């Protein structure tokens, strides 16, 4: 059975179609792994065993009829921020405890259409606010490469579960790096698609103008396969881009001769751990050897990105989270009147970081401060977008580290939000610009912790990124699953 762990979605699909293994067997295999390892890793908020077995059975029936489905019978985990009909969806928050959505997110619908098997809902930072998954109201997820360490965040559950093979693949969401940073920390492949490429309908909003759903997988092939299922226009999301998505697996194996790789000079200065810098630069050299050329570029406004981001995302969050008032669903703590009920419910229901951001966001939107903060942030955002546009006139992709460090220790930064925020310094500008970006493993540091290389692409050009990532993956042949979890 252990050979299953090394297979990608295509290979598993072949096996399933040939009936060499059934979806039920594959699902049991993963459920057993969850039982065995998740006491250590704490990746799943909820394991949907019953649902999984039902879906697996139905997949087997479809398989026996020779029906097609891009994910037919493949066990997958979902970040607990994606609405699943009839299955509690909490955003790792007490305030949504008990909330059972009456509808599926568009991506969940798409996965169902392709016959996936839902293993469960994965842990995350509460409302996707955080970089370590320590902000979950329920539990702290551990990094399978070193269980003293955090898996990154906010999609830490998705990244850790995928790295430890507690699912074949998973979906996360990325607002400022929440797919790429944990993917990088856990040695997995993470993709934040172009804003508007994947429907946000049914994704519980943190910051609407930045949020995007994307896959976390063990291989670049799986990333492309997952993208094939979730991408495309959705009339239920007004910000979804009305263009047809390509077959992302088609570019796998194509060469990168003549590709111009931009290296932003502002991204390789102080604060980066030497191992991270070295490993990323080695990755670049390797790409160069495969025929790409390297150009130094400048993204001068990036230094304002983190400040801008924490104005935009907190402002939107303060409004997006206003609906959790105890009136309609989730937690309600009764009070002497409606205002008292609001106060008690929200005081008890939200964690520290969420409250911090609601207060920040309320502040930057309040009358008298709007122009100085929110409007100004919008202007800076335009400048940041302009930086990228200019850069992409002379290069095809941009390469940076995913994060300045590798995974840090549990508790190390939790009391220092500003340091924690800097963990996303290289990923945040991408969300502000609405561009696609990927995290691909490029090596390990001296402690054996994975290092992620970020590839940023032009808007809607996920293909070039995937092609590049595949070259890197094929050349490096890095270990994907930590020994302890094999």
């Amino acid at each position: 059975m252990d050979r299953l762990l090394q297979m990608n979605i295509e290979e598993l699909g072949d096996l399933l179609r040939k009936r060499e293994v059934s979806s039920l067997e594959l699902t049991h295999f993963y459920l057993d792994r969850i039982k065995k390892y998740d006491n250590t890793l704490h990746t799943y908020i909820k394991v949907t065993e019953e649902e999984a077995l039902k879906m697996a059975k139905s997949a087997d029936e479809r398989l026996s009829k020779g029906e097609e489905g891009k994910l037919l019978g493949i066990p997958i985990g979902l970040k607990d921020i994606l609405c699943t009909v009839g299955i509690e969806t909490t955003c790792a928050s007490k305030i949504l405890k008990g909330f059972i959505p009456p509808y599926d997110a568009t991506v969940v619908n798409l996965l169902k259409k392709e016959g996936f098997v839902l293993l469960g809902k994965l842990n995350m930072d509460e409302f996707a606010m955080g970089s370590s998954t320590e902000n979950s109201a329920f539990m702290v997820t551990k990094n399978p490469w070193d269980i003293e360490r955090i898996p990154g965040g906010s999609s830490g559950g998705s990244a850790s579960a995928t790295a430890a093979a507690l699912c074949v693949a998973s979906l996360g969401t990325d607002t400022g790096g929440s797919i790429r940073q944990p993917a990088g920390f856990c040695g997995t492949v993470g993709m934040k698609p172009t804003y508007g490429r994947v429907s946000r309908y049914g994704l519980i909003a943190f910051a609407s103008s930045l949020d995007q759903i994307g896959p976390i997988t063990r291989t670049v092939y799986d990333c492309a396969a997952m993208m094939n299922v979730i991408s495309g226009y959705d009339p239920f999301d007004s910000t979804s881009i009305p263009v047809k998505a390509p077959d992302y697996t088609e570019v796998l194996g194509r060469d990168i001769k003549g590709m111009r790789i931009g290296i932003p000079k502002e991204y390789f200065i102080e604060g980066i751990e030497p191992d991270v810098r070295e490993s990323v630069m080695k990755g670049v050299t390797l790409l160069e050897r495969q025929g790409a050329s390297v150009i130094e570029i400048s993204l001068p406004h990036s230094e304002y990105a983190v400040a801008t981001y924490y104005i935009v995302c907190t402002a939107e969050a303060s409004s997006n989270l206003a609906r959790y008032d105890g009136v309609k669903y989730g937690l309600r703590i009764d009070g002497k009147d409606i205002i008292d009920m609001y106060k008690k419910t929200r005081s008890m229901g939200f964690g520290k970081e969420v409250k911090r951001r609601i207060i920040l966001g309320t502040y930057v939107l309040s009358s008298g401060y709007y122009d100085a903060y929110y409007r100004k942030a919008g202007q800076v955002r335009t400048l940041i977008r302009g930086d990228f546009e200019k850069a992409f006139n002379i290069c095809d992709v941009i390469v940076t580290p995913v994060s300045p460090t590798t995974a840090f220790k549990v508790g190390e930064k939790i009391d220092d939000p500003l340091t924690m925020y800097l963990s996303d310094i290289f990923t945040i500008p991408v969300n502000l610009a609405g561009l696609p970006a990927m995290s691909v493993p490029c090596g390990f540091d001296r402690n054996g912790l994975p290092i992620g290389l970020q590839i940023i692409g032009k808007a809607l050009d996920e293909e070039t990124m995937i092609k590049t990532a595949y070259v890197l993956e094929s050349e490096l042949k890095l270990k994907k699953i930590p020994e302890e979890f094999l």
Partner: protein
Amino acid sequence: MGNTDYEGVIGLEVHAHLLTESKLFCKCSTRFGAEPNSHTCPTCMGLPGALPVLNRKAVDFAIKLGLALNCRINRRSIFARKNYYYPDLPKGYQISQYEEPICEDGFIDIEAGGQEKRIRVKRIHMEEDAGKLVHEHTIETSTYSLVDYNRSSIPLLEIVSEPDITTPEEAVAYLKTLRDILLYLEICDGNMEEGSFRCDANVSVRKKGSKELGTRTELKNLNSFKHIEKSLNYEIRRQIELIEAGGRVIQETRLFNVDEGITYSMRGKEEAHDYRYFPEPDLLPLIISNEWIEEIRSVLPELPGEKTKRFIEVYGLPKYDTEILVSDKDLSYYFEETVKTFPEPKTVSNWIMTELLRELKERNIKPFEAPLSPQYLGELLTLVKDGTISIKIAKDIFPELMDKGVSPKTFVKEKGLIQISDEAEIASAIDRVISLYPKEVEEYRFGKEKLLGFFVGQVMKETKGKANPKMLNELLLKRLKT
């Protein structure tokens, strides 16, 4: 208004529910009066993860009104979130428009106190309505309240006037004119009781001739023209008296108490709200092409103002008639259709204003639901004109024609109601009457001329009302003299 040194300064904010089939941001029905929470979905319930999608029809309607109110239609407008907490507001914010509304800088021409006046329209913006709270008892004594989200996200247009209105009378004229326009455009049912046409007023006073604006108060939820006029009158008088007594007007929201006819402060409820408006990130800017605007312009109906002018000019109708006919778009169509078959506008107008309106009201139906079509009304009037039946007969059979919807021509023939215009027949009826009342004939001949009416009545009775009145009169006079 007691003190004539002052004038009122009034700006009006009208909320008009749009008659779209579905809500502003989802496919749920907008129908009024359904089971609570039956017209809801994740989007209009504000469920986590749900997103808004703009209803194109609502944009059509907004453009329509913008054009009708002489506004500039902005080629780019944006939606904004207005953030506040209330249980009927499921998302904790209302999607509205703030910095860049869809229409700006228009005007409405009104007539009040015999004077024509132009009231500027500052802006029209699109927004969604909130749900409705249902309390156990009154809001103060209830231990719980329920929320019905059927109304949540029903499309509204907010029409904001400049403070060009100086009297309550003008305010009412403005509102009536605006309501008529909305009805003509068929984009709002104008129902004030059900809240599909709601009004808030900003009121201040100033010394006449002064250019400066005084501190204003906001009057909320005025749900009839009568209440609007009364509350504005009260509020203006209150402010003048306050200032005259050396006091100062406080900027606040006031509610109108219908029973006492006064306004009172909503103290405490309205602490300086900060709505923290910001552009709605879930919706793209609304881009409106010239083609879109022209498409709407080409289907714009004639508006009440233009129609009034035309009715006076083309049909030579008195202003009073015109106002009644134009006040109801259907009625004005009914009128014009009737005139096509009976081209005597004033006669048609008289019959519509008296007989038709009375019968419509009795049956509680609209002009075009009347079985008596404009063509049939024209036919009836022609029968009167050519002497086939008398006016009296026409009026008598009107209700029956309203019920049956048959051709009046056929009807009178079948009922044998055709007027008797045969001299000999009328003369013989007269003879019979005269022989029956010799005493009265004697008295008449001795000078009691008012008995003529009595004889007319008797002959009519004799002929079952069918005698041609003109001939009857002539023959009777002749016969009584001999």
